């Protein structure tokens, strides 16, 4: 697959979709949280474009993964940072690629260990096929259909680039 994806363009569109989404739902002053690492890169850009006053939160979901017993400790070790109390806040959770939905489940479990948010909306750069859990995104940069052996991987943070790979 050699289709060029313009990430900057997608981010601009996503930022305006998020604005529209929060405006429509009456979620003024939301708190943005990115999932490490790709989601946090995306979230940083969106956070800047939207000019939110609260600092960006970052989640490392390594301790909440459901594949720990087979894959072991995840190499990503930098800890989660949620600088603002999430209690009763509207949260925009950001990830790079939505695939099985397991990462989002883990992220939501972790968020609830920090407090009870008012709501969580999900924004993803890429929504790809292959969901294994009933999880959908509220804001999507681009939807793509991929087969089981294909993977969409974001590299970054400078520059951000998306690569579609065949894995054996």
């Amino acid at each position, binding site marked *: 697959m050699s289709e060029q994806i313009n990430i900057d363009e997608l981010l601009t569109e996503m930022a305006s979709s998020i604005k529209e989404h929060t405006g429509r739902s009456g979620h003024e002053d939301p708190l943005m949280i990115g999932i490490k690492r790709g989601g946090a890169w995306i979230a940083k850009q969106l956070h800047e474009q939207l000019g939110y006053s609260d600092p960006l939160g970052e989640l*490392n979901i*390594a*301790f*909440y993964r459901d594949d*720990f*017993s*087979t*894959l*072991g*400790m995840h190499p990503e*070790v*930098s*800890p*989660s*940072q949620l600088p603002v109390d999430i209690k009763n806040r509207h949260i925009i959770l950001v990830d790079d690629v939505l695939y099985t939905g397991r990462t989002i489940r883990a992220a939501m*479990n*972790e968020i*609830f*260990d*920090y*407090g009870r948010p008012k709501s969580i909306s999900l924004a993803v750069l890429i929504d790809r096929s292959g969901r294994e859990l009933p999880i959908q995104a509220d804001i999507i940069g681009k939807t793509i259909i991929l087969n089981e052996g294909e993977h969409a991987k974001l590299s970054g943070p400078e520059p951000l680039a998306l690569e579609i790979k065949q894995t054996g």
Partner: protein
Amino acid sequence: MTGNTIQLDNNGNLKHFLTTEGLSQSLLQKILDHAESFATVGDRPVKKVPLLRGKTIANLFFEPSTRTRTTFELAAKRLSADILNLNISTSATSKGESLSDTLQTLEAMHCDMFVVRHANSGAAHYIATQVAPHISVINAGDGRHAHPTQAMLDMFTIRRHKKEFENLRVAIVGDVLHSRVARSEIHALNTLGVLETRIVAPHTLIPKEVESLGVHVHHDMDEGLEGVDVVMMLRLQRERMRGALLPSEFEYFQRYGLTGKRLEKAKPDAIVMHPGPINRGVEIDSSVADSERSVILQQVSHGIAVRMAVMAMTMGRSGDDMEENE
């Protein structure tokens, strides 16, 4: 069988944690990195992560301990594991049950990890050779041999305060002879690449082989503390002393007790550490133990994070399935 072949699995992951000796610098740094992530769990409203949910850990303490046992217990609970505390000295063995029978009984209860403290050197290592392949063993102190999680929490504390190990001078002061902590610290400090490790103690409290570990020995405390970045005090282990190793505690304090005046020999930003429990007025002056330079209580909190890291690393190993299929 050396410590390393039994501590690591086929993929080089930590399977048991028995000694700091022979582990690579990158593995020790990895333990510290993971501990850094786990340290934040204690600051959250819910001080728990689901990593070891459904796992059962048995604290096997053949020798009494309060702080080590409780921090292992808290670490296990923060990882959502279930933990059994067994004070073996007061239970089965006093009824004549052999060690291997005790272990088999616990395996039959589907335990996944044994945390072992024992008065005999090599006990944890022996247990690691006896257990079923899926069980991990962590050494919580064996005789005079090793106390690797204590050493790693000390390394974690040093790294938090000093960032890098390369340019550090570290003095380990006191009863090195009876100290498993000192042995594990020396191995870890060597591997992490400190500039210099010094041992400061009277002749009678220094083991014969110690200089072969690459440390500098000092018998004069003022000399030993000159220009150091870290002062690691050891507890005078009176309960292990048979015979006349020391004149008196008073005299010991006169020569090797850490006072504010002695500490002036160290660098102005030197930190003071102690594995606890401290004997005030024997190896350390109260005013030093309670001063701003003392990081003794931080060591206790760091112990939880480091033990979480080691438990998680030994229980979750990548490629485990493959290994079992072989």
